[in-house]
Structure formats: C-alpha cells, structure tokens
C-alpha cells in the first residue's frame, strides 16, 4: 500500500449536558505518498475535528471516538501502545490556524525553536531534555539548525529573527516561522489548518508557493484544511468536500471544481463571487444542529433536488466518474 494515512469510517461524538452530538459520522479519507489533499467545507462542518483526531490532540472528554480506525504507515493508531504512538507522531507536523496566537509572546523565536529541537533530540524524555538544554555545544548546533530552517522558508537574516519576539514580526513572517517550526522533526505528513486566512492576498500567494516548494523538496504528504476553494486549486491534488461531518464529494481538484456533481458542492462553487462577473447564489439555510441531525442525507433540508428517499436513508458513496466519488441519491442507480 502506498497510502501514508488512511482514515476508515471514523465517527467522533461530543458529550455535553444537552446530549450526544454526533459531529463526525463515518468519514473515510486516504492520503497517498507525496500528495496534498484538501479538506473543504463551511465553518462548523467538522474539518478541524478531523485533523485533531488524526493528530491525537482532540480533548477527550468531551470528545469520544465511536468507531473507525486511523492507519498511519500501515499501523493502526488506536491499537498500539502510547510509547509507540509517540514515536509515530514525530512524523506529523501541524501548522496552526492563527499566526497571532500560536507563538508564545514571552519567548523569542529562538527559544521556542531551540526548546523543540532539543526536546526532539532527547527522545521526548524530560530528564535528558533538562540536561541537554544546558549543554553549550548542543545549543549552538540547534541554533544553526534553526537558522537553516528559517532560511529554507525564505526569511532574510535568520539569525536576527531568532533573537526577536513574535510581536516584532509581521503576520506573514510569523506564519513562515510556524512553517519552519513544523519542519523541525523532518516530518512525513503535515496538517495545515487554514494557515492563510489571516494573511493578505499578495502574501498568501507567496506562502502557498512556499508550502508547495517545501512539499516538493522534503517529499511531504499533507492534509490542507481550507474554505477558500481558490487556494485549494493551487495547492491540492485531490479535494474532499465535507458537509456536517460527512464527506459528500471527492475527486481530483480540477475536475471537482470545474464539474461539481453534488448539490452542496455546486452551491458552494456558485456562492463564491467570481471575477468573470457571473451571478452568485447563496445556499439557503444553515448547518444542522448536531444534537439531532436530520435523518438520511444531512444536506436534504437545504437541497433543491431533494426526493422522498433523502429524508430516510443516507446515500452511499458511489464512483460516478473515474476517481470522482459522490454521496447523493441523484446519482445512485439502485434507488
């Protein structure tokens, strides 16, 4: 198998006083070696929860995994011991959403990166770390490594940046620093959670090309979460469209965006103002309440093409065209 990650039939619940909210309901995603996969959808449809479950940083409770498996390099992350999982997790890199709040304002960039590098070097053991943190030659080595990393993300004068506090850097520079920090452990997989939403258009474009360059050089695979379909077009090989905790459509980027099939994807594409000046149409209604989600297809209350079946049985995922999957009764011949 050349899948680096495969999530199979994953379902995540959240327990609260009001009841159980079924946020993620049976999703399957795979990422091939050297491929960047986009996860697209509205706010509150479970994109970030998916990423956090994959990384194992979802707070539990309130979260709980009802069913499903996550395989990473052919090992099931839920079945192995914690120590083994920690070793595997070193292959992950996480690029967080907000560059303003993700860096600790009381430490310099150098300290932040140094801590991480030495922590990695001392095999995640606290005594070894405390010992190593005092060794001069290790610190010097780590500093050189950090400035190398900063140079790779095209920051000029990396040594002076290491001495600066996050507040002294602009938004684009902070986001670059976060990318450099993510690359410390030489990961195989990166998970980026809307890293460009806080950036300007011109800087965003530069940043996307930077990620692309890093992916090529380090032979990374990635999961890129975004709600900007234009960004997804540049960066991703394949796209999964998510709605209310389910995958509704997936396929190769160009085909999915040019010829969307599912009514939700069509609505999403139509809702974006385009420079061709075509009219845009909003999708009526809003995301369902997860405490008692609609039966059957979760999109049917907002759908223009809904039928009798839609409100009773959830549709299966079918291959409509080669490598283009959709979950909708409109295209299911075994109605």
């Amino acid at each position, binding site marked *: 198998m050349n899948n680096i990650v495969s999530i199979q039939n994953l379902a995540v619940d959240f327990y609260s006083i009001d009841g159980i909210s079924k946020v993620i309901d049976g999703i399957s995603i795979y990422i091939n070696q050297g491929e960047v996969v986009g996860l697209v959808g509205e706010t509150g449809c479970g994109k970030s929860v998916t990423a956090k479950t994959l990384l194992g940083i979802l707070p539990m409770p309130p979260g709980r995994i009802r069913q499903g498996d996550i395989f990473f390099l052919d090992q099931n992350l839920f079945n192995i011991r914690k120590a083994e999982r920690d070793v595997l997790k070193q292959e992950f890199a996480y690029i967080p959403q907000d560059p303003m709040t993700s860096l600790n304002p009381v430490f310099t960039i150098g300290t932040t990166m140094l801590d991480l590098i030495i922590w990695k070097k001392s095999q995640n053991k606290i005594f070894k770390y405390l010992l190593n943190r005092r060794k001069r030659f290790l610190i010097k080595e780590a500093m050189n490594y950090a400035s190398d990393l900063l140079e790779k993300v095209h920051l000029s004068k990396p040594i002076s940046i290491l001495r600066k506090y996050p507040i002294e850097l602009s938004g684009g520079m902070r986001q670059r620093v976060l990318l450099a920090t993510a690359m410390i452990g030489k990961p195989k997989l990166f998970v980026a959670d809307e890293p460009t939403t806080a950036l300007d258009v011109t800087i965003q474009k530069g940043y996307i090309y930077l990620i692309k360059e890093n992916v090529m050089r380090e032979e990374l695979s990635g999961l890129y979460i975004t709600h900007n379909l234009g960004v997804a077009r540049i960066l991703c090989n394949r796209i999964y469209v998510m709605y209310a905790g389910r995958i509704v459509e997936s396929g190769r980027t160009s085909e999915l965006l040019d010829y969307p099939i599912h009514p939700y994807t069509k609505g999403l594409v139509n809702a974006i103002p*385009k420079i061709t000046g075509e009219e845009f149409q*909003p999708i009526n209604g809003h995301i369902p309440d997860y405490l008692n989600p609609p039966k059957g297809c979760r999109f049917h209350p907002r759908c223009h093409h809904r039928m009798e079946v839609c409100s009773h049985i959830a549709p299966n995922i079918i291959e409509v065209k080669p490598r283009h999957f959709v979950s909708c009764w409109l295209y299911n011949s075994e109605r």
Partner: protein
Amino acid sequence: MKNENIILETENLCKFYFIPNKKKSIFHNQEPIILKALNSVNIKISEGEIYAVVGETGSGKTTLGNMVSRVFEPTSGKISLYGKDIAFKQGKNLIEVRKIIQMVFQDSGAALNPRQTVEYIMSVPLNICSSLGKKEKMFKIKKVLESVDLPIEILQCYPGVLSGGQKQRVNLARALIFNPKFMVLDEPTSALDVSVQAKILLLLMKLKKEMRLTYIFITHDMSVVKNVSNRVAIMYLGRIVEVGQTSDIFENPIHPYSKALLSAIPVMTKKEKSMLPKEIILNGEMTSLEDVSNTCPFISRCQEKKDICKKVECPKLKEVNNGHFVRCILY
C-alpha cells in the same frame, strides 16, 4: 467622471501619527517620528455609487473610512459632504453629519457589546441623536430589523448567541436606523463563510436599491470588488496608486502593484484564470510606514523599477484614460 451629484469629496486628506522618539539624547530632545497613515488622499464619490477601496493590511484603507465617517479627526485636509466641509466639525454639528454618514465596523463580533441585548444596542444611536418616545423607537427598530431580514425575537438576545451572519445584520441594522445617505462598509464580509458572504452581499445590493444608498466598500477581496463596485481605488502605504472604473482596472491594470494584486487572486475555474494578468509574486513585505521617504512608496518591491524612480519624488496621479488615474512615473 461626471461632475454631477458629487456626494462626498476629499481634498489632500492627511492623517499623521506622532510617535515619540525613544532614542533621547541628553543634550536635546529629538523630534518625534511622523507616521503618515494617510498621505494627501483625494477621492470623489458621486451619488448612488459603490466605491471600493482595496489594499494590503496597513495601507490605510480603514483609516480613510474612519476619517470620512468622522470617527476621528484628520490632521489636515478637507472633507466636503454636499459641498459643506465636515472635516473639523464637533458637537451638535457632528451629530447632523452622523445622520447622513454611518459606518459598519470591521469585526462584526467585536463591534457589538457582549453584555447588552440587541434591543439596547439598537436603541443607543436613537437615544443619542434623537428625542423619540419609547413606542416610536420600537417602531423604528422593528422596521429596520425587517429590512435586514431579521426576526423580531432577536431583540432580546445577547450577541454571543447570534451567528456570524446575524451579527453582521445587526451591525447593518444599527447603521441603517437613521436612513443614512452614505455608508462606509469596513470589510463587511471578510469574517464570514462563503455562503453567508453571498447572502450579505445580496442584502447590501437590495438595501442600496431600496434606500438609495452610496457605499464606500473597504475590502481586500478582489473578486468581491469585481462583482459589487462601480469604481475602485487601490491603496498602498497611505497613498492611492490607481483609481478607475472597475472594468478598466480589471481589464487593463497599469500600476505594477495593481498587477501584482490582481495576479494574486486565488481563482477557482479555468475561465477566471485566463482573465488575470501574468503571475507576479511580490518579494518581501510592505515597508514600515515609519520609514517612508518622499520617493515612490512601492519602490522596494517593484519589479519594473528603473533608476529614475529612486531620484524623483513620488509622482502625482495622472490621468491615463477617461477617469483612470495612475500614480507611477513610467506612465
């Protein structure tokens, strides 16, 4: 550009901030650093127009909006509304201005006080600027809520319960309560989802038709600009670098910065990609506003720069086509 029905005009509008110089020497106090947030901006807006202001963070778009709606006072310059100068008005005279110009602020969540109900939030402008009775106030509030498609039950809610789109609607309703002629919209859709964004944009268009409004539309999303506005001003470091009809600028961008900005739009379909200029990726970041010299502000990132650019002072806006102005020495 036709000169008829000009609703708002600014002349050499400036806003400087004075930052105390930290490097104090013992012998003499050094002069404070001048931060030029806005540097002699001239705009003319005719009635019923949607005037988009585009630019990067820190280019002074929001400052321009705040200045025009008189949230703060300009350092120098003129703002004339229907021919009257409002740049330095205060007190009662300013309240009269407020009834004509209203502003929708940037972050819809932060613009509403989380400890006040929607009813109270909506009645604040009425308490300040009018002397209406309780019943009349309620009547007015309900009427405005209807026009932005909000249910009346929302009046008892706190902003924390509302969704992003609803918050933005409450903001809009608060601005619309005096039937203003002129609205400054500061990034009205940047915090919203695509489908909600489309709804708010359509609502804005509907309101404009019904109430005969004029908008200044501050944004950094070029594809929204293309769909919404009549004219565009592109700003860079406190200066307007290019103004023109929307179609002119999209078809024929002249200033190197406008070209870069247009080419950076993340587009979705093939058709759109063919409409954009060739890809330019800008190197580096915007220079800090503190060390802006008298030369062209874009000089550090420009890819078409020549030796003259460094020697000559910043050029003035020149008319290239009918109503298409550019601030670049090469044209």
